[in-house]
């Protein structure tokens, strides 16, 4: 799997994500600077990391979504490329129009960094196929603006098209209000594009993909990607 991580001046999970991708793929991810106009050739996966791309003072991801490299990412996505956006990456994908909905200030108005439980809502995607029976996972969130907002029609469509990848749940797998760390509609933690090749999610699977860090529940996401790419090849 050939992957690239996009680096904005305020990205700060770029290395974390590159480590997780590299460990799964057995080859390092390339780091691509936001001022570049083109992606390296032959990529299978483009990943947009967490952080505060341009300080995120206006709206999270707004300025990043309009930077030169994002035109190339949008092209890549339109050609059917696999694109993963985590945390700030999710915000950027939404601002770039690659995923529907909006992400707003957490309902508590506070930054929240802690482990949450997620239910893996679908295995039908290059990001989730390897979760198998492991349908409730534990991974961290760390964000200030992660409340996923969708109107009724959009939420219903995402549901009907099986495009909700993850939901916030409690340890028993129930999508309760208490399990929702940010006030997202329908406890939605991650959504897929209509071609299922783009995923945006607020939680950080890359932070819990190494036993030394206290868990590996995030690792199957990166395995899924490697398998999905291998299948095509």
């Amino acid at each position: 799997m050939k992957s690239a991580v996009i680096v904005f001046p305020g990205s700060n999970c770029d290395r974390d994500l590159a480590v997780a991708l590299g460990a799964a793929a057995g080859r390092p991810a390339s780091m691509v600077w936001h001022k570049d106009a083109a992606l390296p050739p032959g990529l299978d996966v483009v990943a947009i990391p967490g952080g505060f791309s341009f300080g995120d003072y206006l709206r999270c991801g707004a300025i990043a979504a309009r930077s030169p490299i994002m035109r190339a990412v949008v092209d890549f996505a339109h050609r059917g490329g696999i694109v993963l956006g985590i945390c700030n990456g999710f915000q950027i994908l939404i601002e770039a129009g690659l995923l529907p909905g909006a992400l707003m200030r957490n309902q508590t108005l506070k930054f929240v960094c802690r482990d949450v439980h997620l239910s893996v809502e679908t295995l039908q995607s290059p990001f989730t196929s390897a979760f198998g029976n492991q349908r409730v996972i534990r991974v961290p969130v760390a964000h200030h603006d992660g409340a996923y907002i969708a109107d009724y029609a959009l939420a219903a469509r995402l549901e009907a098209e099986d495009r909700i990848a993850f939901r916030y749940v409690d340890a028993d797998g129930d999508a309760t209000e208490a399990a929702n760390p940010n006030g997202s509609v329908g406890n939605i933690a991650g959504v897929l594009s209509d071609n299922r090749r783009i995923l945006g999610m607020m939680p950080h699977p890359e932070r819990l993909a190494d036993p030394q860090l206290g868990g590996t529940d995030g690792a199957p996401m990166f395995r899924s990607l490697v398998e999905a790419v291998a299948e095509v090849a």
Partner: protein
Amino acid sequence: MKARVFVTLKTGVLDPQGEAIRHALGSLGFGGVESVRQGKVIEIELAETDPARAEAEVARMAEKLLANTVIENYRVEMVG
């Protein structure tokens, strides 16, 4: 020329910041506050001197960057 762009949440979009302010005003003893919405105001100083051209330019800025038209409305006001 100077322009002001007001960016506000569309009606129906939940506004946790506004809600928090309403709540805090209540605890501070301010009665009769029925609703609170919070928005942004962005003041832009432009080299352009023609008001009509300036306004059109600022509207384009709002469309392209300043507002997220999925959830936000904007309004441009020329100040002088």
